[in-house]
């Protein structure tokens, strides 16, 4: 049994973790090998490891982990079920709260959510809730167990815009209680950021994303791809088509650039473009036509999860890769696990460094990036210490590709074509945090379209809250 040194069988025959204070380690692909392929990095737990890890749960009465989960999964209940080997029941527990457990188990920042508030965290490692969730979801898929769905339809139609995490969750929750839901997706395949943004090696598309989307469709949700709301059809038309409520989960939007000289040179890409070419359009596979530029030396600007994804993608395409980030490692917004993975794989971090110009050759191709050293000053509005340029410290890094991973600004397609839909100063759609209600009657919104770029699970939480809001709205309306 792999990883058996971390697991033992107690006198009463139960499987336990070797050290109750330490997480049962999860097996991963060797960094040197995985840096050359797009296969999933993390292998996940096997049954014994999952049971052993679950045995570490204290099963607290006042379980803080549930409150740390944006979709409020009954975490202690499913962990006890795993501990008892009742995996099917554990799947039922999880899937009654989350439509996408195999995805969340992989990409949620558990360390700042369920695991972050975990009580045992004070005494030892937090329990690996994410890895257990993933184990249960993967096990259910292998056994072909589907989430519970509603057979009784209530006859009310709801439109959901965007098939990313917010939209899928909202659609799944509404379908589960009997609504007739159609998702409208702008791209040619459903999944949103799960498909175009997060790479294969972190979130396998055919093995993990597609089956979870199928589960949502099995609940009766229809998905119309190639349909851009605000272009192919307008929100007011959806009401004319008989939809009683609309949920906008259209995602983040337009990539932000720095506004420095040389940024339009050939060889400068947004992380969105680079990742979309590779993930959605599968440039890394020979059987797809999509071209992608694989440089000798790639500089990725930014320090978030998207920057890590772009970095590790470029690495796998055969480039030497540098991260250029203006603060220190402590301030990197990316998950610690992602930073660790990137380092193991050989990514070079140039910290306290900020680009000031992209250098080009006579043909307008990137030949380097001019940067300036930074130091940290007083904390700014975000609470992080403000980076300040060190005068006269400019230096150049030779490179042939620059990838900008600096976040996004909201996409105006929907807000500019929908009368009565208010946006804030940052052009994000204004929606009530509790139920997703917007300024326009019958229109709800959530996820990155409202908050700006955030995480998969926060979008799912917003999709879930909006589903409740929509249900309440339609019930009140039909009274």
């Amino acid at each position, binding site marked *: 049994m792999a990883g058996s040194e971390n697991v033992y069988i107690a006198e009463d025959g139960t499987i336990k973790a070797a050290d109750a204070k330490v997480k049962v380690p999860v097996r991963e692909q060797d960094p040197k090998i995985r840096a050359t392929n797009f296969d999933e990095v993390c292998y996940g737990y096997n049954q014994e490891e999952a049971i052993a890890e679950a045995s570490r749960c204290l099963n607290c009465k006042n379980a803080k982990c549930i409150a740390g989960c944006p979709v409020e999964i009954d975490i202690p209940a499913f962990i006890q079920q795993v501990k008892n080997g009742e995996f099917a029941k554990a799947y039922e527990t999880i899937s009654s709260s989350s439509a996408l457990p195999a995805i969340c188990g992989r990409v949620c920042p558990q360390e700042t959510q369920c695991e972050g508030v975990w009580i045992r965290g004070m005494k030892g490692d937090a329990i690996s809730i994410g890895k257990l969730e993933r184990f249960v979801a993967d096990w259910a898929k292998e056994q072909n167990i589907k989430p519970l769905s509603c057979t009784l339809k209530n006859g009310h139609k709801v439109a959901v815009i965007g098939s990313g995490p917010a939209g899928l969750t909202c659609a799944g929750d509404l379908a589960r209680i009997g609504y007739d839901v159609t998702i409208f997706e702008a791209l040619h395949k459903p999944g949103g950021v799960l498909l175009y943004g997060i790479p294969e090696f972190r979130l396998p598309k055919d093995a993990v994303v597609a089956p979870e989307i199928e589960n949502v469709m099995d609940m009766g949700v229809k998905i119309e791809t190639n349909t851009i709301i605000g272009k192919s059809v307008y929100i007011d038309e959806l009401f004319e088509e008989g939809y009683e409520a609309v949920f906008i989960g259209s995602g983040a939007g337009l990539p932000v650039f720095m506004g420095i000289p040389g940024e339009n040179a050939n060889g400068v890409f947004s992380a969105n473009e680079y990742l979309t070419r590779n993930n959605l359009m599968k440039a890394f596979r020979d059987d797809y*036509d999509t071209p992608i530029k694989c440089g000798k030396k790639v500089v990725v600007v930014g320090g978030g999860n998207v920057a890590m994804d772009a970095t590790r993608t470029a690495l796998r395409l055969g480039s030497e890769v540098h991260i250029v980030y203006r603060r220190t490692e402590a301030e990197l917004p990316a998950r610690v696990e992602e930073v660790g993975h990137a380092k193991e794989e050989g990514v070079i971090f140039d910290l306290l460094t900020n680009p000031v110009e992209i250098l080009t050759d006579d043909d307008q191709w990137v030949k380097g990036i001019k940067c300036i050293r930074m130091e940290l000053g007083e904390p700014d509005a975000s609470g992080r210490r403000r980076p300040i340029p060190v005068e006269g410290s400019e230096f150049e890094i030779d490179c042939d590709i620059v990838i900008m991973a600096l976040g996004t600004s909201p*996409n105006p397609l929907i807000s500019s074509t929908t009368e009565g839909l208010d946006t804030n100063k940052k052009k994000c759609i204004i929606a009530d945090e509790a139920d997703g209600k917007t300024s326009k009657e019958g229109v709800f919104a959530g996820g990155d379209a409202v908050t700006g770029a955030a995480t998969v699970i926060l979008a799912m939480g917003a999709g879930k809250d909006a589903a409740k809001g929509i249900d309440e709205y339609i019930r009140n309306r039909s009274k």
Partner: protein
Amino acid sequence: MYRIIESDLLAANIYRMVVEAPRIAKHCMPGQFIIVIKDEFSERIPLTICDYDRTKGTITIVFQPAGASTTMLTELKSGDHFYSIVGPLGNPSELCSMSKEELSSLKILFIAGGVGTAPVFPQVKWLHENGITADAIIGAKTKDLVILEKEFNEVCNLYVTTDDGSYGRNGMVTKCLEDLVAEGHDYNYAIAIGPMIMMKFTCLLTKKLGIHTIVSMNPIMVDGTGMCGACRLNVGNEVKFACVDGPEFDGHLVDFDQAMKRAQLYKTEEGRAKLALEEGKTHHGGCGNCGGDK
């Protein structure tokens, strides 16, 4: 969905297809475009909308194969389906939001170059339907490459010019424009659509002539909804995305030299892919040196 109803050749290597796409046909306006995908493994290719029929739910697309991906589109025949068509993308032409008074105050000239004749057509036709018969120049390399002449003649005052003088007037569209102005035509609003180099030189001339000029840009694109930023252009020293800010811009503000360089981004890959397509399986491993396509 996306069934091809008609498919024919407008000229050597210029293809026209009428495709079922009801949502697009219902909403598209002159100036907008679509993105097509031939099959699951193909690229997303931005194409021009040449015409639309709102009642039949069809759109007409016109394209001239250049790289491997557009060449592969020609494999599709009447009755076949596209894997995906999405749109309408980009903003409608500025003309479409003008009042009748504003429109009639303009002295409009359309300047179409090569396959760029196709996206000019819906604009000329729309104006005609709104009571205005504009002037239009169609420029082509040679007689055989002049397209849509009959259709244009029905909706505008047409001047055809060929680079080699084999049909119509003799010379490029810029010469035709200079001649028309010399002949006493007076324009204050031009819409120029065609190859980047043609739009660049047209804009240099119209600037000199004091004619406000709109161009339609067709840069490399992935999603077409603003998400990827591949289509960014320098317009009046600001970064603009052709898909959400355009595709039509003030031609006197567009940095054409940069746009032309950006259009070369995947030239090596395109060349290799085209060669692979032409030579089939004999291409790979033949020399033992190139390491295939990627």
